[in-house]
């Protein structure tokens, strides 16, 4: 089939190009500033192509203890959170995918209800506090371990697997854990990959629970630190002055924008893999039984 471009096609392509450009330009600008000496970007004598190149901002950040600690914290939180979330969500979703399980409906109802009603911020805070989790990574990880939405999506995937598989395995004498581990999980690679990426992004981007649950700023992951680093430049915003003094003293626009880039780097790196899976995952979530 040969496509003949009409004026209609042209207009559409032009509009989409403009929108895409609007998405890309901020990235190019951030990159350019991060590679420029601070004086250049403040004078504004370039937009997306630096006049003078320098790696100062990066070498500064990669030598700043506060920054490196926050990256380390983020990596730990992301790893803990991803493993825990996968474990909790897969096991529960698997059990709930079994239609013969007595009590399944009531468990589903209990989970589903959390989608439309919740205690809210302060009761959540009090629970985390009473469990003694303040200032521990668990405070960030545990409350976000799963969600009704995750359970529903993963469960519907398990339900789409043929039941005869388990039954055959049972005849051969396999136990239930073995069936899950050696038969179901290998068949579930697409959904596991989707949710692994999903959880990794979620925990890497985690910000607010760190702010409220981690008073000890040496435990802070990268997002709250980044917020303080950039807020300082927006004058009048009284960032609650906690970024350590040496870091604050050197905060030129190049350092701030380099930090923004480093904070999104893992996401941009997994993005090519993520995008394909996520598009599917999002549609899967929208399909109801």
């Amino acid at each position, binding site marked *: 089939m040969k496509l003949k471009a009409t004026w209609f*096609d042209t207009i559409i392509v032009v509009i989409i190009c403009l929108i895409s450009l609007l998405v890309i330009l901020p990235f190019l600008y951030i990159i350019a500033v991060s590679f420029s000496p601070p004086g250049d970007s403040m004078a504004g004598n370039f937009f997306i192509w630096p006049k003078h190149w320098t790696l100062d901002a990066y070498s500064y950040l990669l030598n700043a203890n506060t920054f490196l600690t926050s990256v380390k914290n983020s990596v730990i939180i992301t790893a803990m959170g991803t493993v825990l979330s996968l474990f909790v969500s897969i096991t529960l979703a698997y059990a709930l995918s*079994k239609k013969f399980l007595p009590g399944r409906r009531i468990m589903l109802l209990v989970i589903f209800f959390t989608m439309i009603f919740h205690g809210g911020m302060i*009761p959540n805070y009090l629970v985390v506090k009473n469990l003694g989790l303040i200032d521990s990574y668990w405070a960030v990880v545990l409350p976000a371990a799963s969600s009704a939405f995750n359970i529903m999506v993963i469960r519907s995937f398990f339900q789409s697997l043929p039941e005869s598989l388990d039954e055959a395995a049972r005849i051969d004498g396999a136990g239930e854990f073995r069936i899950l581990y050696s038969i179901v999980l290998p068949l579930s690679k697409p959904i596991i990959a989707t949710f692994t990426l999903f959880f990794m992004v979620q925990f890497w981007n985690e910000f607010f629970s760190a702010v409220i649950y981690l008073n000890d700023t040496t435990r802070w992951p990268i997002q709250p630190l980044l917020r303080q680093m950039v807020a300082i430049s927006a004058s009048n915003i009284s960032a609650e002055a906690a970024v350590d003094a040496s870091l604050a003293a050197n905060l030129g626009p190049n350092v701030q924008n380099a930090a923004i880039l480093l904070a999104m780097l893992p996401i941009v790196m997994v993005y090519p893999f993520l995008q394909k899976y996520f598009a599917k995952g999002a549609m899967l979530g929208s399909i109801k039984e």
Partner: protein
Amino acid sequence: MQRALRPKRFHQLWPFYLLAAPGILYFLTFHYIPMTGLILAFKEYSPFKGMMDSPWVGLDNFRQFFGTSDFYMLLKNTLLISLLNLIIYFPFTIFLSLLLNEVRLKVFKRVSQTIVYLPHFLSWVVIYGITISFFGPSGVINHYLGQWFDGNANFLVSNEWFRPLVIFQSIWKDAGWGTIIFLAALAGINPEQYEAAKVDGASRLQSIWHITLPGIKGTIVILLLLRLGSSMDSNFMQIFLMTNSLNLDVSNVFDLFVYHVGLEQFNYSFAITVGMFKSVASLILVLGANYAARLLGEEGIF
């Protein structure tokens, strides 16, 4: 035959309960136990007496909350942001979906989709950082405003600019991602309809109007109702980052108020009262939206 193969007795079923246990424990601990904390809305919480022994005050907290002008300000700010999202962000997402759907060159479509989905995965802090780089006092926009027009605007610390900026951020971050669900619905439209329309001499604009839009009407209605159902929720992360003492008149929404009163002033009871009002109002809105969807002959959300 089948019956023998399915676990039926407890000694066959316990593995499933064991598998479900961590997840159920999670939901009880981090979703249901907090609900019991709502009881504090009817008490005057005293840290020395604890949750159970703090004195009852009945509906005093609610009376106090509804009696202040804060309540109307919060309601107005929260609903206005939701409303603006509904009339700007939401149609823009549909518009973008229609555009992408009309692209006939597969490669171009894939590349542009990859680009517009990307911001969805960035954290709000990163978005906030980018916003400051552009709209901050020494940001690029103020730089050019100063150079060309001899002026500058306090985007981040003014009442007028808060809402436009927040809506713009939402569009930039999520409009692309939001097209996925519409594109899925669009893919479900029978291509024969387009061919028939073409034979009848319909232009592409006409077929968009008479075939494409009616084809995704169900999806539009459901998503619209879902958004209406969540109008008490603002995007808290976004607002929390964008707010400051100079735009508080327009940026203060229920969630933010709860944060300030509860976690900064440690007035747990009052903060929980406000949070509970929000949760209950949301519940009513969601159930109402679902009921409305059914009335309209759609399947409903649940």
